[in-house]
């Protein structure tokens, strides 16, 4: 028996203040103007038969199954393409309509294999349903005529779904989904008449085509033509659990369809607040890592990092860890230990880890991976707007007139938002891209940036100042808005500052490499096109001046009046699914939950009363500071939940040296990651499928994570933290994550109204959610800024100290790719490696030719920090003088090259600017050879613990 299906209204909902009343089969129904007859009928619980229509796509009118009769009109109009009109009288069921529909179905079925009993979508097939609905009992044409039964062979090239052309009814839903929902335009209908076929690209296979494997076509297919291979293999699911994706900061809602405890497929939730039924290749398909053979499901300990791992019970593991932490604190002092929370864990789990550090450890040495990605966002937006978060919801972009994307690559890093953005650009909004590389958004089907400001890495501040200079000196400031909503003296100081000649586009041209005229034109467009929105990513934050650029972006938005309503705003695209949440939960060493400084006695008293401890009023160590303290011998123990700092943090050899100085490293993770190779205690982690909790995405949307299957190691991550806290002598008594959220809400003003019952009823909610905003806050700073008046900040351009020289003449910048995620621990253990099996170095043809490098050659990349070897990809996506790579594979050693330069305000590493030289080479670097030896050694030390006893 298949799962109950959600109601499909056939055509999308329309918004209109004008309401129209029509009669459908004698029932009156009132709907917004612009609504189709089909949707109006469904509103009245009358389901009109359909095949080519579905409510995620614009009506197409091809299947002719949804014909109706309308009084006063000739013929039988298609209800999907016919809009309601006042007083319209519609009949959906008449003998004539029944006859017409049966005839249509008869034609469809005469060319469809009747293998329903062995079909993977048996019972979950709209064609099958419609045959039943229209009462088809015979096919007069027989099955011997021309047909597609023995159609050309299936396309099995995609690792996740199968294309069986024999079952295709050419309804175009997949083609339209690829266009309208995803915006890739990879599919078409090739041939005409009887020869019509769905075709990826120019008669290519799916894998050869431009398909990005988002699954929108599979979702839209009404038959078994496009079917998940997991469904073909396992069969249809028995139950469905709504949960939230654990990949990027979009935070898509999914229905995990499950048989027993086995996930059959992940289907994007149509009512998902962030994704509205869309997904990407990671969330939709790359969940197999959760049950990968590499999972370690038993706690382990060892006395030193060169000793074999020993399998132990949970009790033994946490007792050993607690004993070591206590020993270290007794010997080296209270501040000699700390913890790292994870943006891949839930809000409740990160809250518990920081609580453990502040209570059981008694210090503020807690940090999170936002340190190495969006910590400048937290700092910069707090300084200017008053809150460390983006200002909009994702849907806001559909009301933007101009969108400026700075240092972000949404189609790769945040694909579902990328699709939404492309849709808005296709509708007519203008696009400005500020990026050193020609990312896909610059020119992709039916989308072209009006301006691509292809600046040199490290020059963002000069660019932002030049944009501001144009706005100020050409009279484009929203004077009334600024006068009403911003601090006058700070604005005047900023106006004078950016108007200086050194901040002009002409001065910036020499720094950024972008023509002044192009900068001026982009500034004019942003300031005058109407609703102007800025979206930015790690290409802004991961610089020595990351915080300065964030403040510069906020300055631009305030100066043009683009904060405080839908369609505008300052929008950080967060990297990991719960970066926003982990920051909200007090993961930073200077802040308690809700971004309140530890030196604030009132806030401290609140938490001290709730937690029954005294809280240290001094800030703790940030992650890079922890490494320095480890090297000077004052930091000896760390509890790391769900982070792989050895792979993800810059200057790997420096990090490794620091890790080697630690006496107790406790790693809680799904796999024996790179950091675990330096660990003394391994606590098995739980994937997002194995626990309850919440994630908070980049639009501040708090969504439920629901347990789909039991934790493989017996404990969810939050339960492991409770066990460790108890062993440390600070027992915490929660029986369910909802109780943790209740405590968070009680102690955090912006969360006062949040609880699991509310999330259950509303699906998700955006903070602030409290007495002032009981239904949450999709748009922030409406009517006034959180801090009262917006504060313009001076943003001097201070060039990075990471300079190109004759020895290191190129700039390396790093980034991400669509199919892989962060350090790759999850996606490398899925079939996503079919798209990206190794990290490669992108190099411009001119730079490659200078060095005699051909595409695919092995090249050494050397910086002041270290050296690694990758294969070269020659491409004009990068500009001359700039090379680029990703960091998804540990053996690549991308972070062996990056330096420990960091943002002045937050210590966020400068991943985006490293001076390097690239040369042809023939063997792995010394570090890579050492890495391989260590990998083999550590794998050997793991074997006794993971090999079953005879």
């Amino acid at each position, binding site marked *: 028996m298949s799962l109950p299906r959600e109601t499909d209204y056939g055509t999308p909902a329309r918004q209109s203040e004008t309401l129209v009343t029509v009669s459908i089969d004698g029932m009156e129904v009132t709907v917004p103007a612009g609504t189709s007859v089909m949707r109006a009928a469904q509103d009245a619980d009358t389901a009109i038969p359909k095949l080519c229509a579905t409510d995620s796509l614009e009506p197409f009118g091809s299947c002719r199954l949804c014909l109706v009769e309308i009084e006063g009109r000739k013929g039988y109009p298609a209800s999907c393409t016919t809009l309601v009109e006042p007083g319209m009288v519609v009949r959906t069921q008449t003998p004539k309509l029944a006859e017409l529909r049966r005839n249509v179905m008869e034609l469809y079925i005469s060319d469809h294999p009747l293998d329903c009993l062995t079909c993977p979508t048996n019972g979950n097939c709209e064609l099958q349903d419609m045959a039943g609905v229209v009462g088809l009992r015979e096919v007069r044409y027989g099955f011997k005529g021309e047909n597609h039964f023995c159609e050309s062979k299936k396309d099995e090239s995609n690792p996740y779904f199968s294309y069986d052309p024999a079952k295709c009814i050419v309804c175009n839903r997949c083609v339209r989904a690829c266009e309208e929902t995803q915006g890739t335009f990879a599919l078409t209908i090739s041939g005409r008449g009887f020869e019509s076929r769905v075709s990826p690209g120019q008669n290519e296979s799916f894998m050869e085509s431009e398909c990005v494997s988002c699954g929108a076509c599979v979702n839209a297919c009404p038959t078994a033509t496009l079917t998940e291979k997991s469904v073909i293999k396992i069969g249809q699911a028995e139950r469905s659990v709504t949960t939230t994706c654990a990949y990027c900061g979009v935070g898509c809602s999914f229905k995990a369809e499950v048989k027993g405890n086995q996930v059959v497929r992940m289907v994007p939730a149509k009512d998902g607040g962030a994704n509205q039924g869309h997904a990407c290749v990671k969330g939709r398909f790359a969940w197999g890592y959760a049950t990968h053979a590499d999972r370690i499901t038993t706690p382990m300990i060892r006395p030193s990092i060169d000793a074999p791992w020993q399998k132990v019970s949970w009790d033994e593991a946490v007792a050993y860890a607690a004993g070591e932490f206590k020993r270290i604190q007794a010997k080296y002092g209270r501040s000699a230990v700390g913890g790292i929370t994870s943006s891949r864990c839930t809000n409740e789990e990160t809250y518990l880890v920081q609580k453990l550090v502040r209570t059981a450890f008694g210090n503020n040495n807690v940090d999170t991976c936002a340190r190495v990605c969006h910590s400048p966002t937290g700092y910069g937006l707090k300084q200017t707007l008053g809150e460390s978060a983006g200002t909009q919801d994702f849907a806001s972009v559909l009301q933007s007139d101009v969108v400026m994307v700075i240092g972000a690559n949404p189609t790769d890093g945040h694909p579902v938002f990328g699709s939404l953005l492309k849709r808005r650009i296709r509708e007519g909004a203008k696009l400005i891209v500020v990026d050193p590389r020609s990312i896909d958004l610059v020119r992709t089907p039916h989308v072209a940036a009006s301006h691509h400001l292809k600046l040199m890495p490290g020059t963002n501040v000069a660019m932002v100042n030049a944009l501001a200079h144009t706005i100020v000196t050409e009279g484009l400031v929203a004077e009334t808005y600024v006068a009403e909503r911003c601090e006058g003296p700070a604005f005047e100081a900023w106006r004078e500052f950016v108007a200086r000649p050194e901040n002009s586009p002409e001065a910036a041209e020499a720094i950024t490499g972008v023509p002044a005229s192009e900068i001026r034109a982009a500034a004019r467009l942003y300031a005058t096109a109407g609703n102007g929105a800025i979206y930015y990513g790690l290409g802004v934050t991961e610089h020595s001046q990351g915080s300065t650029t964030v403040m510069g972006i906020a300055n631009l938005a305030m100066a043009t009046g683009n904060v405080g309503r839908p369609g505008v705003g300052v929008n950080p695209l967060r990297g990991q699914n719960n970066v926003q949440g982990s920051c909200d939960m007090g993961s930073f060493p200077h802040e308690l939950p809700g971004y309140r400084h530890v030196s604030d006695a009132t806030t401290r008293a609140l938490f001290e009363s709730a937690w029954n401890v005294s809280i240290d009023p001094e*800030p703790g160590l940030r992650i890079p500071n922890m490494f320095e303290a480890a090297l000077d011998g004052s930091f000896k123990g760390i509890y790391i939940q769900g982070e792989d700092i050895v792979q993800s943090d810059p200057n790997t050899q420096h990090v490794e040296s620091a890790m080697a100085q630690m006496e107790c490293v406790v790693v809680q993770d799904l796999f024996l990651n790179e950091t675990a190779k330096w660990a003394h205690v391994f606590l098995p982690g739980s994937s997002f499928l194995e626990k309850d909790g919440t994630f908070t995405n980049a639009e501040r949307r708090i969504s439920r994570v629901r347990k789909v299957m039991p934790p493989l190691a017996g404990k969810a991550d939050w339960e492991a933290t409770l066990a460790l806290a108890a062993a440390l002598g600070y027992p915490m008594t929660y029986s369910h994550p909802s109780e943790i959220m209740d405590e968070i809400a009680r102690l955090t003003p912006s969360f006062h109204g949040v609880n699991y019952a509310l999330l259950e009823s509303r699906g998700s909610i955006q903070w602030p959610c409290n007495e002032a905003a009981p239904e949450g806050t999709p748009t922030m700073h409406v009517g006034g800024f959180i801090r009262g008046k917006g504060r313009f900040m001076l943003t001097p351009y*201070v060039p990075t100290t990471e300079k190109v020289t004759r020895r290191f003449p190129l700039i390396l910048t790093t980034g991400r790719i669509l199919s892989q995620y962060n350090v790759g621990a999850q996606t490398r253990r899925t079939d996503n490696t079919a798209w990206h099996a190794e990290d490669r170095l992108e190099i411009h043809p001119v730079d490659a030719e200078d060095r005699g490098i051909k595409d695919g050659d092995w090249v050494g990349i050397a910086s002041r920090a270290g050296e690694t070897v990758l294969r070269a990809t020659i491409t004009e996506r990068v500009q001359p003088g700039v090379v680029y790579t990703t960091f998804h594979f540990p053996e690549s050693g991308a972070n062996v090259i990056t330096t420990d330069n960091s943002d002045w305000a937050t210590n966020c590493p400068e991943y985006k600017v490293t001076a390097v030289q690239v040369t042809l080479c023939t063997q792995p670097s010394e570090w890579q050879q050492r890495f391989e030896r260590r990998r083999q050694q550590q794998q050997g030390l793991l074997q006794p613990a993971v090999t079953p006893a005879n």
Partner: protein
Amino acid sequence: MDTDYIIRMANQIADALGVNPDQDQAVAELADHLTRFWEPRMRSALFASAADPGLHSRFSPLVSHALDRMSAPV
């Protein structure tokens, strides 16, 4: 804490905040930043470095002024 690391970071903050035409305010903001974001052993290392005559020339004047306004962690 490594002296180079500490001095480099402090000077970097001074570069960012030093643009303020009101230098007194810039010094106050720098002192506030160091107090609010630097863990005590980092501040101690900064004070210790500042007390070393051999390192004095490596400090931005703004950092030196900020330290004058701060007290060393105990």
